[in-house]
């Protein structure tokens, strides 16, 4: 597997076939005794925009503190939860529980559901 070609930027799909996001970045662990290995998948704006330019990453972090769900830390998914890596990456997690849908839920609750005909996110 080639990490940049096969993992980075691929779409993440959760246990319930919900589109979660795309892979923004990867965390590599280099231990003294173990081989270097990928420990986590990172998702979210700050990681993503830092790849274009560090200043954009800082801007994204700052904007996220002003507005939106105001999550403190980055969303990290342990590599052990990866089930398959193909055209998409399937994960053994629930998108909602790990915080991948924070923005989706925030926009649904604060904006979309307040417009007539927007529907209700919680109705399944």
């Amino acid at each position, binding site marked *: 597997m080639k990490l940049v070609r096969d993992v980075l930027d691929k779409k993440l799909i959760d246990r319930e076939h919900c589109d979660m*996001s795309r892979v923004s970045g990867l965390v590599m662990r280099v231990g003294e005794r173990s081989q270097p290995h990928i420990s986590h998948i990172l998702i979210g704006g700050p990681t993503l925009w830092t790849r274009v330019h560090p200043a954009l990453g800082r801007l994204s972090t700052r904007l996220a503190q002003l507005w939106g769900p105001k999550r403190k830390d980055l969303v990290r998914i342990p590599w052990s939860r990866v089930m398959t890596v193909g055209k998409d990456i399937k994960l053994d997690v629930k998108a909602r529980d790990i915080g991948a849908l924070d923005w989706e839920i925030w926009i649904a609750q604060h904006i*979309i559901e307040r417009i007539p005909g927007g529907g209700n996110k919680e109705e399944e």
Partner: protein
Amino acid sequence: MKKILQITLGIITSVGGFLEIGSVTTAAQAGASFGYQLLWAILLGTICLIFLVEMSGRLAAVSKHTIVDATRERFGFPFYAIVMLGMVLVAFMVLVAELGGIGLSLQILSGLGFPWWAIPVSFVVWLLMWKGTFGLIENGASLLGLVTISFVVAAVKMHPDWGSAGHGLLPTMPGDQKAKYGFIAVSILGASISPYLMYFYSSGAIEDKWDESYIPMNRIIAGFGMTFGGLLSMAVLVAAALAFQPRGIDIDKFEQAALLMTSALPKWGFYFFAFSMLFACLGAALEVSLAIAYFFAQGFGWNWSEDLEPSKDARFSFAYTIIIFLAAIPLLFGVDPIKVTLMSMALTAATLPLAIVPFLFLMNDPIYLGEHRNGWVSNSVVAIIILISFVLSVISIPLQIIGG
């Protein structure tokens, strides 16, 4: 049987989706200023679009990924961000032009100026997306768009000289006004080869759950649909050549363009023109707004589908809501839709390499297409036409700006 119905719908979609304010304005200007001489630009644009639309559908049917998905995955986010910036800016200008086109049609029907229509029109477009499904937008807009066939009736009724029209299909250099000729040629190419149509079409294939068995059908839709669309544009050019050139009128106002219908159909022509423009621009406005929202949603990996209730794909719905209302603002301040149209069509042509070159790489990638990869014919036809459009636009856009 179901597939035959889908083919029919697909062709109607393409006929309805092809003609919009861009193709009508550019074709009418070409006819008014240069007679049949610029027909070749429509032909070239249509050939290129047939290949591109076929590829967009094939990519989606085989890989189950849209063009935007595949661009981000294959080239990474930093490159994707550049493509997104360029495509979204140009598509936004096109959206302003289409909303303006609806406003201008209502202006000639009602007498009330187009800035007054900016907010009501954006609201209706937004409401159709908010409440409607993909099928409704695709089929409703295209069925209404069939009224644009009246351009063909108008062109034929004016008895064009088919021989000299045929000569226009081969490129020739004009005697004078070379800069204007080049700029209109570029705008026509930009109006025909619209990347937003590809993003819309490949997302539509995913919305309609296409698989490999749709490849032959996709080919028929792309071939027939875009050919019909190209013929409609040519009809506008021919009608404009017959209506304006003898009188030496240059079109710079929307109302003048109605003449190309009223010369042939004195009684009903005006209404045919107004409603053709109204429905054609409405269909295009829906397609462009969806294409922009798809661009964000697919690029960032959000949930998206025009068939879901807005709260089930909140970020996607939020994206088109913001975009449609932002696009109303310039019109509210009276920015001339025709100027926006011409500039956005020329910019489309200039940014084509940004959209098409990465796309050609994807279409040759075995990971996405396996045995259904492009052959050398499709690759060369598209590459050559894109190169021509790019070179022409690099030469003629600065000339047009300097020349005013």
